[in-house]
């Protein structure tokens, strides 16, 4: 009872802070300095139509490398935590049904194709490596659901993951050698705004991020679905 009272007191305090923040908030009428720089310079400097992509991949590219690393670490820890313990004994399960199996055969390639489309076009349309990677991982999820006993080759997933990571860093180092700095996209010609092959290395980098993120999510899903029922 006293615990619940303290929780309420805490919530009221946080709610008070939030209320002052909300009352004191006035929306900006103009873009602030940072946003102004990005709005004015992105098209001319980087040639990317989607400014959010330009920020994520190039302006703050090092942070994205860190983010992908954090995601990799959490996928690795999930695998490590769940892999320990008993040996897995495959147990006969009820078949999943004709509808799901046939539907998966039709849909899984289409879903993966959509994921690839989303991350290849990340510099032109909404979407990019993270969204596309999640869509690819949901294709893998469908395969997992249709055949729970299928052993996903962890070797393949981790090979895709590490190759994408190595190429990502290699492109970043190339930017250091050939252009202005680490992960600079101007190692390739910028092209015209709005073309598929434009914005220098951004489509390449975002595709690598997409593959890496997709492999990480897929390995998370595979290790969680590979656990034993307790």
């Amino acid at each position, binding site marked *: 009872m006293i615990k*619940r009272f303290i929780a309420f007191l805490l919530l009221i305090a946080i709610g008070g802070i939030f209320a002052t923040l909300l009352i004191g908030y006035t929306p900006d009428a103009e873009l602030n300095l940072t946003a102004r720089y990005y709005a004015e310079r992105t098209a001319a400097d980087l040639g990317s139509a989607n*400014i959010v992509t330009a920020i994520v991949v190039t302006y703050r590219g090092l942070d994205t490398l860190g983010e992908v690393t954090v995601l990799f670490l*959490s996928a690795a820890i999930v695998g490590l935590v769940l892999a320990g313990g008993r040996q897995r004994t495959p147990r006969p399960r009820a078949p999943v049904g004709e509808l799901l199996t046939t539907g998966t055969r039709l849909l899984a390639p289409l879903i993966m194709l959509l994921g690839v489309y989303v991350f290849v076009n990340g510099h032109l349309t909404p979407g990019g490596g993270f969204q596309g990677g999640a869509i690819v991982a949901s294709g893998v999820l469908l395969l997992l659901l249709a055949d729970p006993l299928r052993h996903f080759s962890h070797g393949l997933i981790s090979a895709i993951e590490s190759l994408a990571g190595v190429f990502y860093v290699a492109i970043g180092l190339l930017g250091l050698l050939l252009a202005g700095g680490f992960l600079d996209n101007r190692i390739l010609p910028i092209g015209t705004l709005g073309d598929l092959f434009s914005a220098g290395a951004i489509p390449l980098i975002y595709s690598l991020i997409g593959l890496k993120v997709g492999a990480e999510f897929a390995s998370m899903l595979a290790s969680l679905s590979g656990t034993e029922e307790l």
Partner: protein
Amino acid sequence: MAHLAMATGFLLILVGFYGALTNRNILRMIVAFSIADTGVNIVIVAVGYMRGRSAPILDSTVSAADALARIIDPVPQALVLTAIVIGVGVTALMLAYAYKLYEKKRSLDIAKFTELKW
């Protein structure tokens, strides 16, 4: 509109904290955390919103020349993009540990885990 969305975000954070503090089931606590996570994201996106402007994507309607007067702040969006992806990583980690805890004690009641209690 930004105020409305921001108020909802703050309320979602409060609801999430309330759920995490008062529920005793570990899975329910993780659900509550993911709701608070969504609330934080809504608040950050609402900060970047400006009335009457469009998304920060240049195309035939928003040319590079008039982008300054036509688009909203792209920085909070890039931030939230990162936050969502990291959020699912953290959730997966919490779920893996919840599974491990259930394996040890055959229960998800937080009150049964007394080893670190004082």
